[in-house]
């Protein structure tokens, strides 16, 4: 068997020649604009802003966003988006997709719930790569229990005044805009609103967080200290933010699950290439039965996970998705990735431990997938409740 990075796609019923064309373009974009620099960006701890503009020009940032706000959606479906994220994963640095595409979590609440004026003001600038937008939900006191968030907003005259902190915010150091979850009302989920906060407002502070992985993605703690925000920055109705947060999750989890499959394929490919050339005990590493079995077992798990990703994506496209499925799918994907990258690292031996191998990088990025966007425990608990065990 030859394992080419995208060979599986050519045989999938969900992909056609337009997906292949998208893959080709994004791959060329990666070769020209990303791969020569990714190691440097990992060291710098952030992506250059020009990259966002270049990605916008290539059509990457605007994929599957409405044409009227600067995106392009005609003819494209969810599988084009997955194809694109797969190609972005080829660099083996998950921070690239996370940070270049942060608008994938920051912008949808605005497009779904924001005023027409806000959509026209924010979306085109973000999709053209001129502005960066983050989503800020998690707080130092916790991320799993969103309903307990503490960032407070008081109405003072004709303004809102925001006080609080946000934690682990992706692209947070560079963001021009943040879609922030705040408490405008009483306790629990019924008191939460979403609010657009421009980061150049007086009282907004931020500090950089260094991380185990996703190093080319700038992650920040954000402080709001008496930040004044005009009422028109409210996204959707006051105290109606929780639903906006929740509706984001399905597509985020689907994307993360697919990203795990893509990362796992990158890791498996590195291990396969190594197993084909490395010799131990007088024969190719891959010719040892135990190694052959190990690698085939990885391929099995990737294939099974991908099949569920494709099914969920198809259901998503038809509006038939079930939240518990996306939650469990994400767990399936992160556990699969954890296993595959472990085995890939074993096959590479010492080489997997040396900075510069893709496997080393992916190994460091397992946890952020298993914790961020809803941790494994929270995902399975959610699924269990929906099974009637609440």
């Amino acid at each position, binding site marked *: 068997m030859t394992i*080419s990075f995208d060979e599986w796609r*050519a045989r999938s019923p969900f992909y056609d020649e337009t997906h292949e*064309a998208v893959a080709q*373009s994004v791959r060329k974009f990666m070769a020209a604009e990303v791969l020569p620099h990714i190691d440097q960006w990992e060291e710098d701890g952030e992506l250059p802003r020009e990259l966002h503009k270049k990605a916008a020009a290539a059509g*990457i940032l605007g994929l599957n966003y409405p044409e009227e706000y600067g995106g392009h959606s005609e*003819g494209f479906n969810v599988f084009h988006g997955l194809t694109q994220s797969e190609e972005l994963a080829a660099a083996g640095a998950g921070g690239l997709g996370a940070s270049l595409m942060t608008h994938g979590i920051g912008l949808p609440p605005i497009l779904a719930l924001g005023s027409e004026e806000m959509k026209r003001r924010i979306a085109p600038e973000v999709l053209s790569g001129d502005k960066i937008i983050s989503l800020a939900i998690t707080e130092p006191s916790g991320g799993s229990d969103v309903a307990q968030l503490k960032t407070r907003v008081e109405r003072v005259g004709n303004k809102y005044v925001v006080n609080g902190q946000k934690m682990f915010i992706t692209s947070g150091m560079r963001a021009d805009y943040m879609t922030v979850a705040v408490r405008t009302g009483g306790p629990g989920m019924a008191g939460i609103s979403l609010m657009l906060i421009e980061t150049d407002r007086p009282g907004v502070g931020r500090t950089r967080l260094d991380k185990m992985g996703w190093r080319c993605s700038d992650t920040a703690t954000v402080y709001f200290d008496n930040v004044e925000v005009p009422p028109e920055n409210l996204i959707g109705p006051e105290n109606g933010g929780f639903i906006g947060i929740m509706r984001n999750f399905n597509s985020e989890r689907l994307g993360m699950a697919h990203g795990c499959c893509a990362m796992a394929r990158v890791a498996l490919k590195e291990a396969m290439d190594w197993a084909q050339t490395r010799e131990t005990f007088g024969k190719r590493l891959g010719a040892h039965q135990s190694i052959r079995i190990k690698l085939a077992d990885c391929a099995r798990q990737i294939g099974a996970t991908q099949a569920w990703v494709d099914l969920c994506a198809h259901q998503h496209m038809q509006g038939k998705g079930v939240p518990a499925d996306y939650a469990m799918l994400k767990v399936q994907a992160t556990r699969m990735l954890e296993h595959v990258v472990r085995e890939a690292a074993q096959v590479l031996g010492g080489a997997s431990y040396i900075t510069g191998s893709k496997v080393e990088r992916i190994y460091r990025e397992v946890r952020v997938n298993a914790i961020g966007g809803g941790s494994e425990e929270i995902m399975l608990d959610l699924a269990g409740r929906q099974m009637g065990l609440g």
Partner: protein
Amino acid sequence: MKVLVPVKRVVDYNVKVRVKSDQTGVELANIKMSMNPFDEIAVEEAIRLKEKGIATEVVVVSIGVQQCTETLRTALAMGADRGILVQTDVTTESLAVAKVLAKIAAEEAPGLIILGKQAIDDDANQTGQMLAGLLGWAQGTFASKVDPQGDTVNVTREIDGGLETVALKLPAIVTTDLRLNEPRYASLPNIMKAKSKPIANKTPADYGVDMTPRLTTLKVTEPAKRQAGIKVKSVDELVAKLKEMGAVA
């Protein structure tokens, strides 16, 4: 001025080809195919001429199996205006291809035909030259710069001694070398827009060309495996080894 660009569908340059077990050719089943890289350079050059206002229309043509439509779509997504598919399942040989292109050139009357200098599958490096011969047009091969000026085109060629610039009277044939330009990637919206650009479906019979191969392949084999190298500790040892092998006297 209209620019005509022929594009060939070949095994993707990233694919490691394998010789078929019966030695009649290389394995093509389930292999990834793409546009010949030299042809991508030709398409890019034509589009740049259009962007500079020198070319008015870029027409791409592909001769081969039905799936060559995908190759045409790639060119259309890059920015070409329309395509012509000349469909045939027969192995395409340079002379037959040049004959079809000559007929298309007569119909379309382009000012320039830009081709890749060779296709990475058979490396024949002759279609452009044959086409120039059939049409009786001037040719500038291995171009590293193409600069149309009125009714001539200056073509800078990469030759052994350095760079040579020739002035050709239009209409003319140009074949591209690697350093002519760096082809763009199609933006994602343009991929979808390309779906609605016209592609005319033709056959070699429409042009009265017989595609029957004139060449017979005797045998295709893998290149000999390279022997593992040895490491030497000093120049003296190197010289001794070379003498031993009879590589130096």
